[in-house]
C-alpha cells in the first residue's frame, strides 16, 4: 500500500502509564486524510448490532474479562458537589475495586487489581494524587473548559498546565465541537497540538464529544484530526452530552485508530465514556476492541472505560460467578 507506509517509531517519550508503546508524535496536518473519510451509518450499526450475537464469554472467561474491564476503568466523579471526602472514598475504591474474598476465590488475590485511573476535575487533582500516593494508579483530570471546551484558548492551555503541575498524569481534554461542525479541521488540529504540548509527559486523551457531532463521518474526522495532532487516546464523550458512548461511536473510532496504526505504526488508545453502567456493556466494548483492533487494545494502556456505576455491576457479576448466587449492590463497598 503506497500511501500507508508504516513509520518506524523513533522517539520514545517516557510516561508513567506507558507500558511499552511509543507515544504518538502526530503528523503534519493532512486535509486529504480527513476529507476522504466516509462512514456508512447503516453498515456500522449493523456491525455493532450483530457483534454481541457473534461474541460472548462465559464462566471463568467472563470473570477474567470483567476483571480486565475493572483494570481499565477510569473511576470517575465529575460533579458540582464533589468534595475531598467524596474523592477520598473514590480513590480508596480504585485501589480495592473488588472485594478481597472474591479475588481470592478467583485465584487473583496476588495480582493487585486496581482500576485504570481515577478521573476528577482539576480542583480535586491534588486530593486524589495524595490519596493514591504509593500506588501506580494515575490521576486523570478533565480539562480545557470541560465539558463544552469553549473558554478562551490560553485559559484552556493554562488549565492543563495547572493540572499537570498538580500531579495529573493524564489529561482528558475536550475539543471544540463547533469547529468540527464548521469543517475547521485545521483549527481542531492546531488546538489539539497546543494541548498536547501543554501536557508534556502527561498522556492526553482527546474527548471528541461524539454525541454533538451529528454524523459518524464527523466522528471519524474528529478522531483523525486529534490523532494527527498527537492524541494518546481518543475518547467518545464528556458524559455530559445528550448521547454519550455508543457502540457505533466506538466502532468508528476504533477503525480510525486502526487506520492510524496502519498509517504510522503508532498505537492510540480508546476510551468510551458516559452511560456505561452494565457489565454486559463493558464486555461489548471489549469485543469491539478485540475484534476491530486486537489483543493489545484490551489492556489499560490502550483501553479505558470512563464510568462510575459500572464497577458495582461488575462486582455483582463476579460475586455471582464465585458463589452462584445473584448479588446485590449493597454487598459491595461503595466508591
Amino acid at each position, binding site marked *: *500500500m503506497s500511501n*500507508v507506509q508504516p513509520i518506524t517509531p523513533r522517539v520514545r517519550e517516557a510516561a508513567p502509564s506507558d507500558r511499552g508503546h511509543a507515544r504518538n508524535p502526530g503528523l503534519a496536518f493532512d486535509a486529504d486524510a480527513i476529507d476522504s473519510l*466516509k*462512514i*456508512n*451509518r*447503516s*453498515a*456500522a*450499526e*449493523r*456491525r455493532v448490532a*450483530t457483534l454481541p*450475537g*457473534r*461474541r*460472548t*464469554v*462465559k*464462566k*471463568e*472467561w467472563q*470473570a*477474567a*474479562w470483567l*476483571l*480486565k474491564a475493572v483494570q481499565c476503568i477510569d473511576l470517575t466523579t465529575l460533579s458540582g458537589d464533589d468534595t475531598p471526602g467524596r474523592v477520598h472514598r473514590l480513590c480508596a475504591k480504585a485501589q480495592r475495586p473488588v472485594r478481597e474474598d472474591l479475588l481470592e476465590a*478467583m*485465584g*487473583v488475590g496476588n*495480582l493487585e487489581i486496581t482500576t485504570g485511573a481515577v478521573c476528577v476535575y482539576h480542583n480535586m487533582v491534588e486530593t486524589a494524587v495524595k490519596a493514591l500516593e504509593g500506588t501506580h494508579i494515575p490521576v486523570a483530570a478533565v480539562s480545557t473548559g470541560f465539558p463544552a471546551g469553549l473558554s478562551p484558548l490560553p485559559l484552556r492551555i493554562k488549565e492543563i498546565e495547572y493540572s499537570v503541575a498538580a500531579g495529573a498524569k493524564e489529561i482528558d481534554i475536550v475539543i471544540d465541537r463547533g469547529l468540527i461542525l464548521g469543517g475547521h479541521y485545521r483549527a481542531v488540529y492546531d488546538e489539539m497540538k497546543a494541548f498536547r504540548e501543554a501536557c508534556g509527559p502527561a498522556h492526553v486523551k482527546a474527548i471528541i464529544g461524539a454525541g454533538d457531532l*451529528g*454524523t459518524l463521518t464527523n466522528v471519524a474526522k474528529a478522531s483523525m484530526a486529534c490523532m494527527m495532532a498527537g492524541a494518546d487516546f481518543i475518547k467518545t464523550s464528556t458524559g455530559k452530552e445528550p448521547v454519550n458512548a455508543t457502540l457505533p461511536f466506538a466502532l468508528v473510532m476504533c*477503525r480510525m485508530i486502526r487506520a492510524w496504526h496502519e498509517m504510522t505504526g503508532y498505537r492510540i488508545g480508546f476510551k468510551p465514556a458516559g452511560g456505561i453502567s452494565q457489565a454486559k456493556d463493558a464486555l461489548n466494548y471489549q469485543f469491539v476492541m*478485540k*475484534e476491530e483492533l486486537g*489483543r493489545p487494545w*484490551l489492556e489499560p494502556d490502550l483501553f479505558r472505560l470512563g464510568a462510575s456505576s459500572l464497577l458495582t455491576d461488575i462486582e455483582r457479576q463476579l460475586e455471582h460467578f464465585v458463589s452462584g448466587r445473584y448479588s446485590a449492590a449493597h454487598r459491595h463497598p461503595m466508591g
Partner: protein
Amino acid sequence: MSVAKILETMDYGPAPEAAGPAEAWLKQHHHKFGLFIGGAWQEASAHFDSNNPATGKKLASIGEGATADVDAAVIAARAALPAWAKIGGHGRARFLYALARLVQKHARLFAVLETMDNGKPIRETRDIDIPLVVRHFYHHAGWAQLIDTEFAGHEPLGVVGQVIPWNFPLLMLAWKIAPALAAGNTVVLKPAEDTSLTALLFAEICTEAGVPKGVVNIVTGAGETGRALVEHPGVDKIAFTGSTEVGRIIRTATAGTGKKLTLELGGKSPFIVFEDADLDAAVEGAVDAIWFNQGQVCCAGSRLLVQESVSEKMHAKLRARMENLRVGDPLDKATDIGAIVSPKQRAQIADLVKKGVAEGATLFQPKAGCPDGCFYPPTLLSNVEPSASLAQVEIFGPVLVSMTFRTPAEAVQLANNTRYGLAASVWSENINVALDIAPRIKAGVVWVNCTNQFDASAGFGGYRESGFGREGGREGMYEYLKRKHTAVKPAKPEIIRAAKAEAAPALAAIDRTAKLFIGGKQARPDGGYSRQVNTPGGVLIAEVGEGNRKDIRNAVEAAAKAESWAATTGHARAQILYYCAENLSARADEFARRIRQMTGVSAATATKEVEASIRRLFTYGAWADKFDGAVHNPPLRGVVLAMHEAQGVIGIACPDEPPLLGFISLMAPAIATGNRVVVIPSQMHPLAATDFYQVLETSDVPDGVVNIVTGPRDELALVLAKHGNVDAVWAFAGDARPIEAASAADLKRTWTSGPVSWFDNTEGEGRHFLRHATQVKNIWIPYGA
C-alpha cells in the same frame, strides 16, 4: 482454565449452546422418523441416516419416501384441497398466524436442531434463520387475510410439490409453505436428504396448530423421492430451490405437463466495491456475503469486484478481517463459521480451490486454520481472471474470488459476465454511483451497501440461469395463484367458407410478396423460399417469406442490439404505441379487408378485430408509463425498491386466430415494458402482421424493437427457445412441450398458453401480460445520515 491465565491470554473460551432439549426430542422419537402424510405419521419402507456434520455422529434415521408414499401424499393433499379452499382467506390466516406463533414459541429448539443437522453456527439459526421463518409466516398470514381483495379474480393452483435444499432447511420450508397455504393450495414438501429434522419438527407443529389433515405433507427422501414428486401427474405446480443442474432436470421433466414451475437456483453473485465505498463497511459486508452459512448460500457474494484504485487496501483489510473469523463448533455461540454440510460437499470445495490455485489464483487462508473434520477455512482467491473456472463456477463454500475493475461500466460488464443472475451487492457512498449501477446488474436482488438481507415483504429470485419466479412479497403470491377461468369461452372462429367471400381479385394484382421484418428493414428470407397464404377456400392471396433458423438468428441479433429501448422512458414508449394505433386506425379498412380475405370472417367481425387491436395498442400505450414498481418497507431503516424490468428479448409465437389481434395483444405489452420482440405471426394468416410492417415503419418504432419472421411456427419457435440470447419465449400456439423442454438449457422464461379469449378485455389484456413481460428486481437501500 484459571482466571489468572485467561487474564493474560484474553481468549474467548467455550460458550456452548445446550443441545439437551434437541437431543431429548430426538430420543422421544427413538431417533427414527416416518413420513407425515394426511396429518399422520406413516412408516417408511426404508430409512437413511442423517448425521451431524460437525461431529460425524448419526442423529436419526429418516424415512425414505417411495413412489407409493409420494402418491399417498399427493392424494391426501388433493383430498384436503376443497375444505382448505372453503375456509377462506381469514380461516387460512388464522392457521398461518398459529404456525408463526408456534415456531416462535419453539424457536430455540428449532435453532439448535437446525444447527445440529446442518452444521451452521447457532448464531445464524438463532438470530437469522428462525426469526425470518417466523416473519414469513406472519407476513403470509396477512396475504391470506387479504387474498380476496388483493388477488381478486385468482384462485389457488391446487396441489403443490415443493423440493427444498439443505442450506436453509427450515427457512426454505417457510418460503415454500407459507405462500402456498396463504393462496389456498395444499402441499407435499420434500426436504433435502441431509437436513430433514426441522421439517419433521415443523410437521409436529402443524398438528399442534390443528392444520387440517393433508394440507401439509412432509415426505422425506433423496433424489428419487424428489423425482417421484416432480413427475407425479397429480401435482399442479413444482417449486424447487437447489442447484441449477437439478433445476434443468425439473424443467425438462415438467415440460408440456401444464405444471406451473418456479425455480430458485444457483448463483455467482458479484460484490462490487467502488473506490468511494466505506471500505471497512464493505469488508464486514464481505463477511456477511461469503462467510455466512459457510458460503453455502445461493446468493452468496462470491465474486469480489474491486475498483483498482482501492484494491490493495481492500484486500489487506479483508485478509486482516479473515484472521478474526472463528471456525469451529457450530453450537458454540461465538463461532462464525461452522461445519460444511457433508464430507462430499467439503471435498467438492477443496477440489475447486485446488483447481483455482492451479489456474493461477493467489490463495489466502488465515493462520488459525480450522478444526479437523467437515470444516473448511475462510478462503480468499485473488487475481482470478474472468476466464478462470473459479470466476464462473458456483463453489458453494466459504471461498471468495476477487478481481478488479477500472470504471463503473467495466464493473457492470464483469458483474453481468455470468450465466447466473441471482443477487449483487454494490458498495459506494455516492448515491449516483450506487443507484445507477444497481439497475444495470442482471440480478433479481441488489443490495446497496449491505448484503444477504431477506424479508418476507420483498421478493427473492433470479434472472437468467438462477431460475425464475419470486418468493416473498406480492410477486411471490402470484406464483401460487392462477387466474380464474372467465365464463367467456374462446370464441369459436367464425369462418364463412362461402366461395363468394374468397373471390379472386378482379384485376391481376401487383405481386406483393412480403419479406421478413428484421432490424427495422424488410429482409429477404435467408433460404430464398416463400410460403403461400391462401383464403380458407384455398385460393392464393399472396406469398410471405419462409423464415428459417438463420432469419431467427438475425432477428434476435437485431433485437439484442436495440437494448436502448429498455432505457427509453415509459412516456416515449407510450407515444410510439399510440402512434401505431393512430396509423393502424388510418388503415383500418384495409386491415379489415385483409382479415376477412384470410380468415373468411364477416366484415363486422373483421372490423371488430381491427378496432379491438387499436384499443389494445391504446391500452398498452396507457400502461407504458404506469406499470410502476413498489417500495417495500421491510424491518430496516431504508427502502426496498421493487423495480419492474423488461425481460429483454422475447420470442413470441402467435396464435393463428385472430391474426391481427393475437399479434398485437402479445407484441404490445412486451414492447410497452421495454422488451424487444421477435414475433412469429399467425402461421395460417400472416398477412395481418406483414401488412403491419408499414405501420411500424411509419410510427417511429426504433429499428430492432419489433422483428417479424413468418414461416413454420413450431420450428421457428423452437429455434427461439434454444437461442441463448432470447430471454423469454411466449408460445400461444402449438405444442408447449418442446418449447419448455428446450428452455431448460438456459432456463429461459416460457409462457405457454392454450386458447385465449382475445376479444375479452379481462382475459386478453392487462396486468398479467405485463407481469410476464417483466421481472421484479428488488433493490435494498438502507440509509442513514
